[in-house]
C-alpha cells in the first residue's frame, strides 16, 4: 500500500471518529443519573425573586438535557399530556404566562425552569415535585426553553405534536432572555 493511500485512510478514519463523536444530539438518557437526586431546591430563595437576582452556578445536569433532541421530544410529549397547555397554551400563554417570548419571571436557564416546574410559583403554577420524576421535569424544562428558540436549530422538532398555525420550531427566532441572569448563560 502506498504512503499516500495510507494517509488518506487515516484521514478518513479520523473524520469518521470525529463525526461520530459529534452525534450527541441524539444521545438518549432513559433515566436521570444518579437516581433519587432532586431538582436544586437551594435555588428557590434566589429564583423566586421576580426578575431574577443573584443565582447559583448552572446545574451540571443542564448539559445532559439542553440541546438534546430526544429530551426535547419527550418534553413535548409531557407538555401536552400533563396539560401545561391548559394554562400556557402552546407557548403563547393564556391563564399562565407566555413561554415563547423573551420574558422569564423566575429565570430562563434550564435549571431555573426545572426549579419552577418542581416547586411551583405564586398565582397558579402548581408544584410538580413528587408528581413527575426529576428526569421528566428536566425534559419538560428543555422543551419549555425551546419554545423561545433557545436550543440550536438542529435539535428542535420540525413538526409540533399539536395542530399549529405558526411556523415550526426550527424557524422560531432566537429570543435572548431578558432577565437579570442573562449574563450567566
Amino acid at each position, binding site marked *: 500500500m502506498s504512503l499516500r493511500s495510507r494517509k488518506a485512510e487515516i484521514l478518513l478514519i479520523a473524520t469518521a471518529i470525529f463525526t461520530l463523536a459529534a452525534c450527541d444530539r441524539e444521545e*438518549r438518557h*432513559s*433515566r436521570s443519573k444518579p*437516581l*433519587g437526586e432532586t431538582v436544586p431546591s437551594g435555588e428557590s430563595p434566589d429564583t423566586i425573586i421576580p426578575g431574577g437576582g443573584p443565582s447559583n452556578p448552572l446545574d451540571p445536569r443542564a448539559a445532559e438535557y439542553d440541546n438534546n433532541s430526544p429530551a426535547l421530544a*419527550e418534553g413535548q*410529549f409531557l407538555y401536552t*399530556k*400533563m396539560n401545561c397547555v391548559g394554562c400556557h397554551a402552546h407557548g403563547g400563554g393564556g391563564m399562565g404566562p407566555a413561554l415563547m417570548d423573551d420574558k422569564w419571571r423566575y429565570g430562563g436557564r434550564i435549571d431555573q425552569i426545572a426549579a419552577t416546574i418542581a416547586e411551583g410559583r405564586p398565582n397558579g403554577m402548581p408544584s410538580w415535585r*413528587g*408528581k*413527575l*420524576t426529576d*428526569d*421528566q421535569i428536566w425534559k419538560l424544562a428543555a422543551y419549555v426553553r425551546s419554545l423561545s428558540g433557545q436550543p440550536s436549530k438542529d435539535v428542535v422538532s420540525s413538526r409540533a*405534536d399539536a395542530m399549529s398555525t405558526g411556523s415550526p420550531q426550527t424557524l422560531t427566532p432566537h429570543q435572548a432572555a431578558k432577565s437579570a441572569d442573562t449574563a450567566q448563560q
Partner: protein
Amino acid sequence: MIGSLQTYQSIFSSAADEVRQFNTLLVIFLVVCAIMYTLVIAFLIAGILRRRRADAHVVENGMHHRQNPLMRTGLIAWGSLVGVGLIALAIASFVADRSLASTSAHERLSITVTANQWWWDIQYNSADVSKTLHTANELHLPVGVPVRITLHSNDVIHSFWVPSLAGKQDLIPGRENDITLVPRKVGIYRGQCAEFCGTQHAHMALVVNVEPYADFIRWWQHQLQPAVAPQTPLALAGYIVVTTGQCAMCHSIAGTPASATVGPDLTHLASRRSLAAGTLPMGKGQLYGWVADPQSVKPGSKMPTIPLEPNQLHAVVAYLETLK
C-alpha cells in the same frame, strides 16, 4: 399445550374466518404458480437438451417462414393456459376480498383499539355507556361472534397484526381504520405491532384471548367492576403511593382517584397475562422488576424510572397484585 403454542402467532392457523380466507387464497396461488413454474422450467430444460435440428438456422437460411404446426398449437395452448391461470387467480382474490368485506355487515361487537408508543389502549363499546369497558394490552373476543375493531393512533403510525386471526391493518394518527374478523377457535394468540414505531416497537405486543361467549360475558362483567379496596396494611400503603405519587399522573384505576389516560389502565392489571404490552409475563417478580426500573426492562418506554424506597416498592407491588 404444544398445539396452542404452535398457533400462538402463526399465519397458518385457522383460528378465524379471515385467516382461513387468506390461507385458501395462498394455497390457490401456490398451486397455480407452482404448476406454471414447473411447466416453464420443464420447457426450458427440454429446450436445452433437445438436439439441434439441421434446419436450426432458419433465419440465416431464409426459411424462417416455415412454421411448425405443432409449435403453433403449443404456443396457443400455452397462451390460453396463462390466461386461464390469471383469471383463476383474479376470481379467487375477488371472492376472498368480498367475503372479508361481508363480515362488517354482520358486526355484533364493536371494539376501539388506540395505539400508543408502545402499548394498546382497548375500549369495548356498548350502547349502554355504563357497560363501556376500558382496558389495555389484552383483547378478549367471544368465539364465533363477528367483531369490528376500530383503529386509532395517538402518536405515530402503528399496525395491528394478530397473525393467527387476520391480516394487518395500520393505525394512523388522525384517521380511523377498521378491521373485522370472526374468531373460530378458542385459544390464546399473540398480536404484534407490524409497523416500525420507535425504539420499543418490538415490545409492543398484544395478547388475544378467544373464549366461549359465556366466559367472555363473565370477563366483561368482572372487568367493569372497580378495583377492590386494599385489604392489608401493606397494600394500603401501596394504594397511597400509587394514588398520590407519580403513578396516578399517567395511569387510571377505576374506583380510586387515579384517572389519568396517558398510560394503560391498571384496574384489573393482575388479571392480565402479560405486563408492559407483552414484554414480561405477569407475576410477582416481573412486577417488582418493572415497577423498580422500567427503563432497564424497556429502555425508552414512556414510563419513567421512579425512585421508590424499598418499602414503597414492596407496598406498590403488594397493591398491584390485588388488582385482579
